[in-house]
């Protein structure tokens, strides 16, 4: 059963990976993805990430469960932050452990692709000159990425 957390606080990716693999000696592959806040050429002061409490956790848990049903995983952790996040800070973590590397890679990618399009988070840029940027627009390429996996929609 995967671990899912939605929080404002930063996370320790290495500690999450250690927890995931501790004592499980059948693990042959551990893939860790960390999404970071880019500085947009030095213009960004922070990203403000809004979320829908309750639904955010539920949607991440749903894609985590779908990944666990699809690949023979030995561990899966997803953590997503909300609130104000400065350039260079971590936003999201997905860590997947499996006996074989392809399973771990595909599970981590699938969880990320679905997180982007199905988990209720919205980003807006705040710039160094004080201006509030527009809400970040969803990219159709993200929908395409998610469509690669054909996970059922929520009921």
């Amino acid at each position: 059963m995967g671990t899912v957390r939605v929080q404002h606080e930063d996370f320790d990716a290495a500690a999450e990976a250690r927890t995931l693999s501790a004592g499980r000696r059948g693990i042959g592959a551990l893939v860790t993805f960390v999404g970071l806040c880019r500085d947009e050429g030095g213009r960004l002061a922070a990203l403000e990430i809004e979320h829908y409490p309750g639904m955010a956790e539920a949607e991440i848990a749903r894609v985590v469960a779908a990944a666990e049903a699809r690949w023979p995983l030995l561990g899966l952790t997803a953590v997503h932050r909300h609130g104000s996040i400065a350039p260079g800070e971590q936003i999201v973590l997905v860590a997947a452990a499996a006996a074989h590397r392809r399973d771990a890679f595909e599970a981590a990618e699938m969880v990320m692709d679905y997180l982007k399009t199905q988990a209720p988070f919205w980003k807006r840029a705040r710039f160094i000159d004080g201006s509030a940027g527009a809400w970040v627009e969803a990219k159709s390429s993200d929908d395409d990425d998610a469509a690669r996996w054909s996970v059922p929609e929520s009921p």
Partner: protein
Amino acid sequence: MKAVYFAWVRERIGKDEEVIDPPAEVVTVEDLIAWMSRRGEGYAYAFEKPRVIRVAIERAHVGPDAKIAGAREIAFFPPMTGG
């Protein structure tokens, strides 16, 4: 039922949430969006492109044909940009 709003839907409407009481002829999510868009200027702006709006009932995604009868919490928001 409780309506909750996020991101620019929230900003355009000017509130986070409210109780709404649509009439009986509002059956589906699509009907509800059309009804909401007639509630005032902010609503008209928020729902000006109904196809862009995502909707969740009881915190699960639903499509435009979903029935709203019995819903306790219905959320309206733009396409998501997490990750």
